[in-house]
């Protein structure tokens, strides 16, 4: 099973000054004039490129990334040509993660490289047989690269390509998949939505299409999809930090929300948060073509304007299900609510991605999010070979062991805090989340894990049953519906690789540790209510307000909650039933592709309107047009 790349693996990043990562916390640019934003964007792109160039050591051969940056800057084409020939003179690896870097090299260097270097690149596409992978982002990288390379070499016969297909055949197939993927994303929603790392695996190929596709329609589509990705990132980020839910994330980013490749894009596009270390690893491959793109100013406003509260509903979809399911892709009903001090996000629960989904959380703003675990949520630690088989075309009995060996150490452990469960159902109304659990007998882990960050302040277990805490300028109330105990959350440390792949050990981090609220009961639930500290006279006043909220619940035979939220909504939610708000069942059938102040689209429409105030951008994939207008 060849699932994922750990993005940072690729690059042996040299340690040198990385200005924005190591510098002080960035503030949103105060000057939002278009020319200022454009200049600032290009400055950030150049910072990324410069960092790689500054790491060039004359005594060492250029890395692939350094060679590429030199081409971007138009430097040393002769030496770079020779280095490319050297790099390609050994057996190649990397699959689709090999394809897009060499696509970038081919296009960036097409007018600079020596004929021999260009021939070496071209020959590598005959002799190296990259795998297509089994995940949507794999395919997007694979086919976008193939689309571009077959435009660069349009008339070549099948024997000159690794897969035996002619340029025309490959081009047509690549186009077919890319149009299919774009159609899915703009009719029923993206599959790997709001991914903390995999956003790069979509954004980079789309940028390359936008930059280099000869087919004007595909060039335009690439730019439109990139617009959509960056607009969603802007809309789903809290001061540059992408919060939950996430179709896919990982054990680090799910806690330290800032520490993700997505943050590189927030930084590069909008400049209001520091980039991650090494510019997220893959960030360089965006930077090398980033001058071909710039987000419109209205995206910048969406990303940085947090002065009014907003709720957004989106329709997404699960990863493709191969078996053991009546549906090929489960619909995902996603809710996001963002305020200045915190964000609450969720979808309805269930299994959407077998390993790395993150269903809901409250993420609070930190003035400097670096190193901070600024989030709160609960999960059922579900691990199931049958669910894995639903999504992967593999045999059942070795898969759970395999995941740890492939770099996902938490999948099969009891105290994991990453992943979704078929026994979790979630409802969110504004800044209230109710998560209910009915864990089937025989499941490995008959417990719910609540995540309590080391960065919370004033954690108070109240006699009422609520647990109060402060995170940043947010007040948080967490109500476990069943008895619980506390455990420290240990980290995962990678040991030298053995014969069986990655090997891990658990370890206790230095300093304050995160805690897990362990509630070992199959029928269970969590209620979280968030608020801004500015809404109350004091933390005690917040606590009093929460205690006063009407709450009834039972866990048998099924978890049932009746709760009046801090915002005055009367919510009734029973596991297995449709949530009811103020007496009206939530109508998921009317959920739109996007609905909110910033993104709007009808399900199936292929037409997304992105707005901020009076400014609007319409991405119409039916007519392959982008149109901007301003409301009078």
């Amino acid at each position, binding site marked *: 099973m*060849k*699932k*994922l*790349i*750990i993005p940072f*693996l*690729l690059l042996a990043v040299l340690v040198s000054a990385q200005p924005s990562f190591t510098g002080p916390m960035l503030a949103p640019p105060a000057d939002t004039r278009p020319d200022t934003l454009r200049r600032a964007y290009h400055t950030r792109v150049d910072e990324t490129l410069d960092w790689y160039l500054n790491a060039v050591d004359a005594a060492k051969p250029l890395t692939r990334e350094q060679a590429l940056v030199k081409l971007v800057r138009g430097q040393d084409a002769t030496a770079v040509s020779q280095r490319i020939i050297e790099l390609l003179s050994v*057996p190649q*690896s*990397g*699959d*689709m*993660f*090999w394809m897009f870097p060499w696509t970038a090299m081919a296009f960036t260097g097409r007018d600079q490289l020596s004929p021999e270097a260009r021939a070496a690149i071209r020959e590598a596409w005959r002799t190296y*047989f990259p*795998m*297509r*992978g*089994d*995940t949507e982002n*794999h*395919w997007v990288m694979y*086919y976008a690269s193939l689309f571009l390379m077959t435009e660069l070499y349009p008339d070549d016969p*099948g*024997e000159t390509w*690794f*897969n*035996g*297909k002619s340029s025309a055949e490959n081009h047509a*197939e*690549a186009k*077919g*998949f890319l149009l*299919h993927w774009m159609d899915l994303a703009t009719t029923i929603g993206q599959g790997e939505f709001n991914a903390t790392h995999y956003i790069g695996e979509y954004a980079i190929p789309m940028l390359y299409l936008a930059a280099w596709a000869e087919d004007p329609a595909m060039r335009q589509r690439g730019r439109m999809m990139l617009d959509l990705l960056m607009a969603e990132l802007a809309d789903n980020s809290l001061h540059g930090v992408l919060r939950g839910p996430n179709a896919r994330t990982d054990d680090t980013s799910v806690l330290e929300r800032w520490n993700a490749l997505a943050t590189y894009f927030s930084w590069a596009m909008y400049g209001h948060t520091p980039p991650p270390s090494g510019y997220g690893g893959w960030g360089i491959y965006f930077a090398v073509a980033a001058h071909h793109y710039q987000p419109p100013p209205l995206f910048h406003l969406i990303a940085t304007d947090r002065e009014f509260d907003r709720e957004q509903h989106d329709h997404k979809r699960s990863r493709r299900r*191969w*078996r*053991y*399911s*009546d*549906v*090929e892709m489960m619909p995902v009903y996603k809710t996001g609510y963002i305020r200045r001090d915190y964000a609450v996000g969720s979808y309805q629960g269930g299994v959407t991605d077998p390993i790395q989904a993150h269903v809901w959380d409250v993420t609070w703003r930190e003035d400097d999010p670096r190193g901070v675990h600024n989030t709160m949520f609960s999960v059922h630690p579900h691990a199931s070979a049958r669910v894995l*088989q639903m999504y992967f*075309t593999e*045999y*059942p*009995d*070795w898969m759970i062991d395999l995941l740890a*060996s*492939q*770099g996902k150490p938490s999948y099969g452990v009891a105290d994991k805090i990453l992943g979704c469960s078929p026994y979790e159902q979630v409802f969110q109304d504004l800044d209230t989340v109710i998560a209910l659990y009915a864990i089937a007998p025989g499941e490995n882990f008959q417990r719910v894990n609540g995540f309590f960050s080391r960065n919370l302040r004033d954690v108070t277990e109240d006699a009422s049953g609520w647990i109060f805490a402060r995170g940043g300028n947010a007040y948080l109330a967490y109500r476990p519906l069943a008895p619980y105990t506390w455990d420290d959350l240990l980290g995962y440390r990678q040991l030298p*690789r*053995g*014969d*069986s*792949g*990655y090997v891990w050990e658990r370890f206790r981090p230095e300093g304050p540790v995160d805690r897990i609220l362990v509630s070992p009961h199959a029928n269970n639930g969590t209620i979280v209510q968030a608020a801004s500290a500015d809404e109350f006279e004091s933390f005690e006043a917040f606590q009093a307000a929460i205690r006063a909220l009407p709450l009834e619940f039972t866990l048998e035979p099924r978890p049932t909650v009746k709760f009046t939220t801090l915002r005055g909504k009367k919510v009734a939610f029973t596991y297995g039933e449709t949530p009811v708000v103020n007496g009206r069942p939530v109508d998921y059938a009317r959920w739109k592709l996007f609905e909110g102040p910033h993104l709007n689209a009808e399900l199936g429409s292929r037409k997304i309107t992105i707005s901020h105030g009076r400014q609007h951008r319409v991405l119409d994939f039916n007519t392959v047009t982008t149109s901007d207008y301003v409301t009078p």
Partner: protein
Amino acid sequence: MKKKYPAIPLLLILTGLLAGATPVHDLYLFGAVNIAGRVAGSRDVAKNGVYGRQADGSFAHRGINYPAMLTGSFDPRDSQVFHVAALCGVMTTTDGGHTWRIGTRWDMTEPKSVMVDPNAPDTVYAALPDGLGVSTDRGHSWSRHENGLPERGKYTQVVTVDRTQAGRVFAGSETGIYLTEDAAHNWRRVFPAVDTVTDIRQSPHDPKHWLAVSQSAGALVSRDGGLTWTPLTGIPDQQALYNVAFDPTRAGRIAIASWSLGLLTSEDDGATWVFRNDGLPEKHHVWRAAVDPDNGRLYAAIDGGALYGSDDFGRTWRSLGMEDSRIQSLVFVPCAQR
């Protein structure tokens, strides 16, 4: 009109036996070496894909490095032509594995099994995770032939062609065993299941005798050409069985591979079963079992380990190399096809 050659495999085997110790079959391995922890994008440190048995019994890599080749099926007219079920689709080579063409497109991926119809060898069937693909032009192009398969519930792990009749094919899927007798134009379910049927094999001694193994329903037997199936007793059904192999050299000898259970054998046509894990590594995760049609040697491919061979049908074992491998399948091809 398609011809029937029901006795071809048996004749080839007998020819081999009469020839004495000289192998009359080539042995091909499909799999990967040293890929523990490999994920998409990893650096490969070994050659993967197709391995062929050498004259000295060792195995040599041939052709491209491709870590996710599952199994192959050879054109009976020319063993330089074979089709492989791989992660990227069905790949076909016409030069013994040196160059390849992916015949399928983006809308068919991750085939789990592929098989040439020996009586209509231009036709190739592929088990797909979402149905069934058919090529009628030697793997150059593919289309879906799924009439009779359910809309959902057609994850197909294995496809096996009846050697006695062109166009008679079994598909092992997540909802049972399906049969077509008109080259996949129409399918009907002949055995219902709630979990994936992982392998289906036809006896080399009796074409009406078929065996199937499954993920949670144990092993199944058919004595009427696959029209009806009944459970084989004495085999655990709580763990997935990966494949089943007949001994072409001796009727009644059968082997079953299981990652969790190891290797099981029967020497009385499935009436009784014995674990044959003594002599295999402690973690006897057997990914594939096979029996050499030339001499009855039993093979067990240990996941993450080596390929083991037994000349006494599992009583004693010795390593045959291919350490740190995951051998997805072993395919014997008559040398006469070269």
